[in-house]
């Protein structure tokens, strides 16, 4: 199951083009990291990937299905997109109901079991009966991740999944990513948290002014900082400091 962007451009009505001629692909076990400055169109790109928005030119395909020709409900079986702000998507009165909504709605076998597994993976089993808005923001973020995991979709797209997570939850996210990798699910991640996600990425797409500035391996990007600078981005502060002091990078590619 692959997500393919083939020469995709997108313009919001009565505005100038936001995304221009993007081509990339993400498949099973991939972690495609998408980075770029605020407002460059990263969240829009995620909305294009599951058919919420349709490209102005080019083709977006999910497992070979063209998003312009498919119903969103059909695409939702194959790709699950998680929004940046949990408040934009959480609606159920309990954590358990929220997490089991997608697998139930998509007619998966054993939705309750899928929800249980996802809650356990995301460390939410102890708060299953709580109201989502009684949880602290970081746990609400994990709740949206659990909902995506439980959906059973082979492709998952996350918008800033590590924002607002503290050390403990960062480690939890590490566990979630490892588990999704074993399940061979493909991930598309939009994030400013380069320090965290460059370690996990198999591919990186760097956007600048709506265009592809770089599409390739994280290893190359880590040693060619100029590309990040051109995109108005930087390596995380500790990495920059460590390099200024003449130290070896912590990770071989960060």
């Amino acid at each position, binding site marked *: 199951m692959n997500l393919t962007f083939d020469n995709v451009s997108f313009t919001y009505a009565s505005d100038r083009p936001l995304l221009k001629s993007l081509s990339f692909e993400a498949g099973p076990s991939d972690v495609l990291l998408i980075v770029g400055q605020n407002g460059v169109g990263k969240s829009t790109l995620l909305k294009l990937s599951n058919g919420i928005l349709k490209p102005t030119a080019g083709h977006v395909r999910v497992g070979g299905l063209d998003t312009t020709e498919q119903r969103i409900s059909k695409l939702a079986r194959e790709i699950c997109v998680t929004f*940046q702000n949990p408040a934009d998507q959480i609606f159920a009165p309990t954590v358990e109901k929220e997490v089991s909504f997608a697998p139930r709605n998509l007619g998966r076998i054993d939705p309750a079991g899928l929800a249980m597994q996802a809650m356990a993976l995301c460390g939410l089993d102890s708060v299953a009966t709580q109201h989502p808005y009684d949880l602290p923001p970081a746990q609400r973020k994990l709740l949206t991740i659990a909902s995506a995991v439980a959906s059973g979709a082979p492709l998952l797209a996350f918008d*800033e999944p590590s924002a607002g997570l*503290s050390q403990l939850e960062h480690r939890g996210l590490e566990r979630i990513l490892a588990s999704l990798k074993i399940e061979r699910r493909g991930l598309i991640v939009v994030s400013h948290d380069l320090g965290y996600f460059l370690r996990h990425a198999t591919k990186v797409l760097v956007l600048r002014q709506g265009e592809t500035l770089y599409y390739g391996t994280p290893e190359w990007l880590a040693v060619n900082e100029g590309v990040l600078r051109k995109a108005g981005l930087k390596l995380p*502060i500790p990495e920059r400091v*460590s390099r200024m002091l003449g*130290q070896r990078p912590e990770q071989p590619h960060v």
Partner: protein
Amino acid sequence: MAARIELNSLTLRYAMASTPAVSGLSCTIPQGSCVGVVGPTGAGKTTLLHSLAGILGKHHPELMVSGNVSIGDESFGGISREILFPRVGLVLQDPSVQISGVRDTVFEEVLFTLENVGAVGDDSDSRIQLILRQLGIEHLAHRKPTSLSGGETQRVALATILVARPEVLLLDEPISALDATAQARLRSILLHLRGTTTVLVTDTQIDFPLSVCDRILALDHGRAVVFAEPQQLLSNDQSLPMIGGWQRWRDIARELEGRSDSSHRDTTRILKAIHLA
């Protein structure tokens, strides 16, 4: 003029909660300083900020309070039960909540603050332009505030508070959606405010606070674990697992130590590099 903040054995317990959200917190924040409040989820960071802004008592009338908060010359006999804006400005963790939605453009949204606090004057336009420019969002001035991206919304929310020029500025995880350039802009704004505005900025990670704050307050389960200057913190060999990203800084300091004989010189070098990075 900036105000000194004094917390005296402050304890805050939400109704029905088994443990306090903030527990016996005492510290003095000098006027015009910039304090990074770091700690994991549930450490009490947001509760502390909301109590200083005077919105906590409003939202949680059954909150149990002991101890005292003073801001400048004013002592509240507990916490303020009145919203202290514009004297104290708070940028919420979820910036979209802060956008009124009743104004058509970003410029008017920021102007709305000045209207609300009765501060509209001949200089309003230039004041707003300046803030938008400092935050790097002047190109958004005519956009609809509800049509923006996450990082853009975060900066507009900042602008709506900064324009009021509060004495005390409280920022709840302000960089969570900001790219590196926007973070650098916020950093220079905060450095510029040093001495004139007392700032508290929360984060789950230590990196940004270390680059801009002159003091770090680490909280865990509502209690202060550390309240120190960055220099002291970096010389501290303690393991501080409640501070996100701390281990990486310990590793950097340790590797330097291996190459020299003065840990004082090392921390100075690290801090210098942080400020240049």
